[in-house]
């Protein structure tokens, strides 16, 4: 059976006054049925652009210039806008970062939910309502009937994110792309939201791409991890293997800068420098200016190489694997 999501060589460019700038430069990512994949990287590395490239919701200035995006084997780039719309919400859904902004401030929850429901199902009013209430109950919202009549500003941030999750899961899509859905929330709420999404995806067999810049949440939720840097995936593999023994120098740096991995009071090692912007990308390895392992070879562009089964690294001098 075809994987739920199969991305190959995806490139996405923004048209600017200085010409096309590629925010994504050769993304390869496969997500299997029911799998949870964490897409990790610093802010600006291209995680959101990846999500919008998949669902065809890129900003007007951006377009996919090369590569393939397949959902259940269907080539999404070949679809008409109408056909793409009929997949959105039904086969692939999204959850966004800021629950304060994701829900329409002037429409009641029931309007927003039934609109999403009836976009793909010709249901009567009463039945649509009943389904929406059931969906709210499923994400742990009490008194769903009463909440349906409310406006977003009458709900807390965590509650709003639950509503957004309920909407995204209304049609039991095959794939959900969650773009930093807990970043804007309190730590305690973060854990709850994480648990709700994880449980529902496992129950329904939904594949999940969990976008985050926070490595700390990855270990608990994901099966696999893909690390992004400056528009490329530099390392991917099973989550434990990557976190225990990163092979790419950037992944190593990221893990070392997570507070939990260090004794209290000790200074956190930070990767020196910052990620290059799209206009200042080096010719070869984009991480080279910050890399301690770089050599003359790094002036060329490294391609992804399979370092171990299911383990890909984009580096000329990868760190030794566990036991090696």
């Amino acid at each position, binding site marked *: 059976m075809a994987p739920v999501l199969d991305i190959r060589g995806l490139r996405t460019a923004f048209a600017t006054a200085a010409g096309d700038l590629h925010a994504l430069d050769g993304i390869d990512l496969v997500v299997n049925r029911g799998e949870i994949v964490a897409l990790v990287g610093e802010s600006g590395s291209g995680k959101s652009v990846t999500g919008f490239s998949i*669902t065809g919701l890129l900003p007007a200035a951006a377009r996919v210039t090369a590569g393939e995006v397949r959902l259940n084997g269907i080539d999404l780039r070949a679809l008409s806008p109408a056909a793409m*719309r*009929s997949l*959105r919400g039904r086969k692939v859904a999204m959850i966004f970062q800021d629950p304060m902004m*994701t829900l329409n401030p*002037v429409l009641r929850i029931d309007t927003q939910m039934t609109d999403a429901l009836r*976009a793909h199902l010709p249901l009567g009013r009463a039945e649509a309502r009943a389904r929406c209430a059931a969906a709210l109950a499923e994400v742990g919202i009490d008194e769903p009937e009463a909440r349906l009549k409310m406006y977003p*500003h009458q709900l807390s941030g965590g509650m709003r994110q639950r509503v*957004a999750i309920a*909407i995204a899961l209304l049609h039991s899509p095959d794939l959900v792309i969650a773009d930093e859905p807990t970043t804007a929330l309190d730590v305690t709420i973060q854990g709850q939201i994480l648990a709700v999404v994880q449980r529902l995806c496992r129950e329904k067999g939904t594949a999940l791409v969990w976008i985050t810049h926070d490595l700390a949440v990855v270990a608990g939720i994901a099966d696999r991890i893909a690390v992004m840097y400056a528009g490329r995936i530099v390392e991917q593999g099973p989550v434990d293997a990557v976190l225990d023994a990163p092979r790419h120098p950037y992944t190593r740096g990221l893990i070392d800068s997570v507070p939990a991995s260090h004794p209290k009071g000790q200074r956190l090692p930070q990767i020196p420098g910052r990620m290059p912007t799209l206009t200042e990308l080096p010719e070869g390895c984009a991480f080279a200016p910050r890399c301690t392992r770089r050599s003359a070879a790094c002036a060329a562009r490294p391609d992804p190489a399979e370092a171990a089964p299911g383990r890909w690294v984009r580096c000329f001098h990868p760190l030794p694997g566990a036991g090696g």
Partner: protein
Amino acid sequence: MLEFILRRVAQAVLVLFVMTLLVFFGVHVIGNPVYIFASSECTRECLNDIIANLGLDRPIWEQYWLFLGNLLQGDLGRSFTHGVPAMSLIWQRFPATLELATAALVLALAAGLPLGLYAGLRPDSPVSKAIMGFSMLGFSVPIFWIGLILILTFSVRLGWLPAIGRGQLVEVLGVRVSFLTLDGLRHLAMPSFTLSLIMMSMVIRLTRAGMREVLHTDYIRFARANGIRESRVIGVHAMKNILIPVVTVLGMEFASVIAFAVVTESIFSWPGVGKMLIDAIAVLDRPLIVAYLIFVVVMFVTLNLLVDILYSVLDPRVRVGGRTR
């Protein structure tokens, strides 16, 4: 909600009181109407008679006190020139003005919303640039000039539309209106278009700006990510947000449109309160001028109150008494 309304009404009464002071004393500064009534061979004696008749011999504070007392009973005095209660003159003329202003409002919305929407959705197309150019002109070209050009083109040169008057009227619920007859509509076309231009330009700009802003929000992206049809995303999810500023601004503007229909009514000899005011000023008909100004103030205050209520209905976030997190 009730408390909110009561508080606003109290504010309104205060505003009104201050306005009566300004209006009453202001009008007394601009000239003495007696000389307009007196014929050239009128002696001192006959002048005094007229002054006593009009009640102008009493001290100004007493005049104001009297005026205020009458005002509270809904009496704004008699027009010097017409000899009938000023208010009844205003009520007689007001339907014509209201009809003109309403027609202008409807035109502004009917044309402004779709044009602004288009310009917001395709900001770079030549059509959008033309629309925005038109809205710039609507703001900057003087109304009387547009009115005259319209008359020259459509009445004088082409002979398609009548230049003056209201045309054939029909009575609906005791009010005589022109928009229900073809002749009336032909008379209404040019003045209402002229009066609507500024409002229309405003609607275009607000709708376009609102659309540009709303299209970038996460909630529109989310609606699209849920597969909701584009027509519904734009027509309901985006539109409901855009309408809030449009309705608010138009509501505020509507009172000014009525008050400043003066120019348009003069150009097209539209028999409304605006034209009446110009005539009243020409002969210094104080009670009529004062009555008109008070009337306009009441109208402003009432409309603003209505807009506030409407705004809170449209935008659930400001709804008074609504539970916030």
